[in-house]
């Protein structure tokens, strides 16, 4: 028996496989394909204090081994989540992590305060790296000061596990990671999407209504693995790795680089059952390599 449990800043996950915010809805959308109870946890989509319509269509463009999106945090607001979604998903035997977004520090705090009383929500992921909103979002995530401000505020406002989701669109991601660690963040997750763009050359205009959008998918994986490796060496808090994980091999790659847990994002679009295959692969990999505890492979390439 391989021990697959990992601890992310106080949160005990039955296995290291999470889903990435914005790629898994509220989990329910995937219930026909997978057993949600077999996930380490799932991160539900970016939640803001107020309802947001998001950006106009078109919001998506396919690129080589990837996709650009510019959803812009469309969601019905935290109250709608609490009243309508939470009751439906609160009995899942897995962790539900809410991704929290805001345009101002006060917004982040307000959402945190509303989430704190919910028994099932034992962790939040704080999005300081959304490339698709004008205010807040990535603006906070591209300077150590901005990131620290958000981390400090949510640390006070949410007494349970705080994971800060980092932007890759920076010169030195370790600086941002250290800044949020210093403010008491329990963990960091990375990477959010790379800012990208694609043009329809026949119509001579960008594919996205917002011109630029966030690049995800296996195309970005080498960048994500590199940043996870850098950050894992730079901080003492756990690192949750994501960015182009398509299968179990990729999940292991992130863990060897230093991720204690991983998130599956865009791959859910391609194969809605992929998370179960990844859980199985990880167990099989450990058995094949004589590893009795998954924690033993975290950061193994540095040994």
């Amino acid at each position, binding site marked *: 028996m391989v021990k697959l449990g990992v601890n992310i800043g106080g949160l005990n996950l039955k296995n290291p496989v999470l889903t990435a915010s914005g790629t898994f809805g509220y989990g329910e959308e995937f219930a026909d*394909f997978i057993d949600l109870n077999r996930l380490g946890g799932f991160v539900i989509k970016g939640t803001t204090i107020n309802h947001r319509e998001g950006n106009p269509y*078109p*919001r998506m463009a396919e690129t*080589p081994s990837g996709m650009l999106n510019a959803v812009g945090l469309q969601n019905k607001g935290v109250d709608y989540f609490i009243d309508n979604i939470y009751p439906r998903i609160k009995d899942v035997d897995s962790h539900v992590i809410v991704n929290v977004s805001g345009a101002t520090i006060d917004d982040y705090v307000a959402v945190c305060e509303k989430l704190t009383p919910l028994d099932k929500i034992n962790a939040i992921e704080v999005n300081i790296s959304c490339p698709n909103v004008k205010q807040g979002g990535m603006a906070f995530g591209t300077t150590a000061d901005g990131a620290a401000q958000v981390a400090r505020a949510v640390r006070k406002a949410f007494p349970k596990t705080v994971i800060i989701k980092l932007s890759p669109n920076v010169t030195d991601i370790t600086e941002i990671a250290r800044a949020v660690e210093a403010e008491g963040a329990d963990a960091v997750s990375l990477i959010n999407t790379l800012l990208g763009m694609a043009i329809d050359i026949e119509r001579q205009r960008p594919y996205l209504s917002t011109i630029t959008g966030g690049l995800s998918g296996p195309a970005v994986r080498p960048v994500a693995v590199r940043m996870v490796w850098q950050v894992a060496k730079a901080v003492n808090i756990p690192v949750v790795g994501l960015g182009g994980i398509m299968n179990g091999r990729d999940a292991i790659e992130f863990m060897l680089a230093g991720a204690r847990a991983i998130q599956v994002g865009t791959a859910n679009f*391609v194969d809605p059952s992929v998370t179960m295959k990844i859980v199985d692969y990880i167990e099989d990999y450990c058995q094949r390599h004589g590893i009795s505890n998954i924690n033993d492979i975290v950061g193994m390439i540095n040994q």
Partner: protein
Amino acid sequence: MKKYILDLKVVENRRIHELYTLLILTPTDGTPLPEMLPGQFVQVAVDGSKTTFLRRPISINNVDRDNNHLWLLVRNAGEGTRALMALKADNNVNVVLPMGNSFSMPSNVNDEILLVGGGVGVAPMLYWGAQLKAKGFTPQFLIGARSAKDVLQLEEFEKIGKVYVSTEDGTMGEKGLVTTNAVLASKIDKIYCCGPAPMMKAIAKVAKENEIVCEVSLENMMACGLGACLCCVENTVKGNVCVCTEGPVFNINELTW
């Protein structure tokens, strides 16, 4: 409705047009195809294309229960669909199905029902027409195309009901766009339409002017097809909604056209 991830085998790839092919698929394990409703679509995985990453949403053209066949009408719309068009008999494809909502059943069997299809937009109308006929309705069809050779599956439609055709060059039926076809001047109670956006918007205008109930099937670009990614949204009277789950079929009154 429960969704499934299935491996389907290509029974036949029937190249019905330079730009279109009819893929006839059946489950590799022989199990009966799940329930699927007219207007729904499937998400087809694409192998063999370096540039294609996401599944391709394809309308359900027909479900042939006698043979346990799923029909997909595929248009050459880029590298992904070209890879699908290149599939050969006995190749396997992985499909997630069924996706989305469906056309709403008319209440009165005496209603005059017109199914309008343009280009590959005829695809859902075949399955829907067959279902309507099976339920005792008398659907009529209006097909728009550039030229006679571009009128797809005409024989199949004629088996179900009366077919009106508009071609831009007049080589079949009336010359002009579907919106000027004489059938639209007759009494019609309900229109179902699928085709290029300009055509659907023009039909919606005709329907509104004549107070005809009208449903259209949208083809916004999609990633997940499951309502998770929020990429395929249409701006409706309820705000941005996912075409993949709230649609693809919308009553025109829900849209901001």
